[in-house]
């Protein structure tokens, strides 16, 4: 173990703190505390799953060249807007489905469509 307190440990500690706080809060504050706990869970899953690395590889595969993720996204969107890429582009639908699955798995793995596809 590199650190005694890893980033994930800090996330868990803050989640614990929020859970302690929640019974003392009411209305909008209590709701926001719950949302904050969920937001930290997203951060923890993103750290563990690193979905952007896979997204970069998948988009590079469809585009046929390597570039940083933001560049690949922008280029693909421009081509989709121009009509030079589309649902018929080889590998595009499968790659975007895999990307979407990776992102939803981080953001909300309880979402029905994720559960349907992630079996």
């Amino acid at each position, binding site marked *: 173990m590199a650190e005694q307190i890893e980033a994930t440990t800090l996330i868990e500690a803050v989640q614990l703190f929020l859970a302690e706080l929640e019974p003392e809060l009411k209305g*909008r504050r209590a*709701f*926001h505390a719950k*949302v*904050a706990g*969920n*937001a930290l869970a*997203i951060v923890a899953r993103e750290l563990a799953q690193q979905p952007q690395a896979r997204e970069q590889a998948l*988009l590079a595969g469809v585009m046929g060249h390597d570039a940083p993720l*933001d560049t690949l*996204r*922008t280029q*693909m*969107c421009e081509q*989709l*807007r121009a*009509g030079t890429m*589309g*649902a018929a582009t080889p590998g*595009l*639908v*499968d790659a*975007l*489905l895999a*990307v*979407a*699955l990776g*992102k*939803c798995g*981080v*953001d*909300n793995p309880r*979402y*029905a*469509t*994720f559960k*349907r*596809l992630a079996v």
Partner: protein
Amino acid sequence: MAAPQKLPTPEIVSALVGATVTRVEQLSGGASSATFAVDAVTADGAAWPLILQCAATGSVPEGGLPRADQARLQQRAFERGLPVAEVVRVLTPEDGLGEAYVMARLPGEALAPKWLKLPEYAPARAAMTRQCADVLARLHQLPISVADGLALPSGSTAQSLDRMFSNYRRFGVDSPVFDLAFAWLRERVADRPPTNIVHGDFRSGNFLVAPDGLVAVLDWELAHLGDGHEDLGWLCCNSWRFGVWDRPVGGFGQRDELYAAYEAAGGGPVDRERAAFWEVFGTLKWGIACLQLGDDHVSGRLRNVERAAIGRRVSEVELDLMHLFKFGSV
């Protein structure tokens, strides 16, 4: 953001509705709008439960339906027998409560996850598909002249699609899934002129439901003139099924049943491809709304954890859209 309005006290509300008011309690509300429960008593001593809906002046976005017109449309729907809350009073700026109106407070459950899951609402779930079809058929049969004098936004299908694309581009976010969805919609768009009064937000989260069925349709703020099929598609978006994905009509029914009941109630023939078009349109529209809500935080307009977190719901929409494009439906 406009300055906060004065707070509605029982005295103020009493003067507005012309009856004794014993309680005014804020139910929900944020920076730009608030909902109050009002307990009034009529002259003959009967309880008169009301809702006061307030919004800061200018909180309706440009091109949106002004709140007073929203209330008037709701009242015209009520007068034509649609299940909506009767509007008691539309406030004027001189009343000092912003853009506000008072309506009847009806009994019923508004939280969809409750009425979609609790056993005592089983009869409601069995009845809702037909009831929703009936409401939409009746709404869409109204001549658009019913909205005469009201500033309802209006547009052809192609104009709606163009507006949604401009809205998407405002946020400077590049989502290949969203652009693929725009391409899919552009390939299929038939440029129909507006022919119907469209509710615009007809979904499970906007119904008041009793154990035996639909009580009222809420939230007319997105009403506009357009293609009635838009309401059929929006009702079926996966985002409003609350996990009950195998009942595409709001988490409680099947599309075939909805369409058959809509036709039987006089709504006219349902074009399934057009309904599917609007379902994809609606799914994308919700995704862009998530971008917009996330942008509230990023831009500093309304910085809070709820707005930031909702921005991450974009990925639910992206997954639904990709499921649609890969397997033909979601």
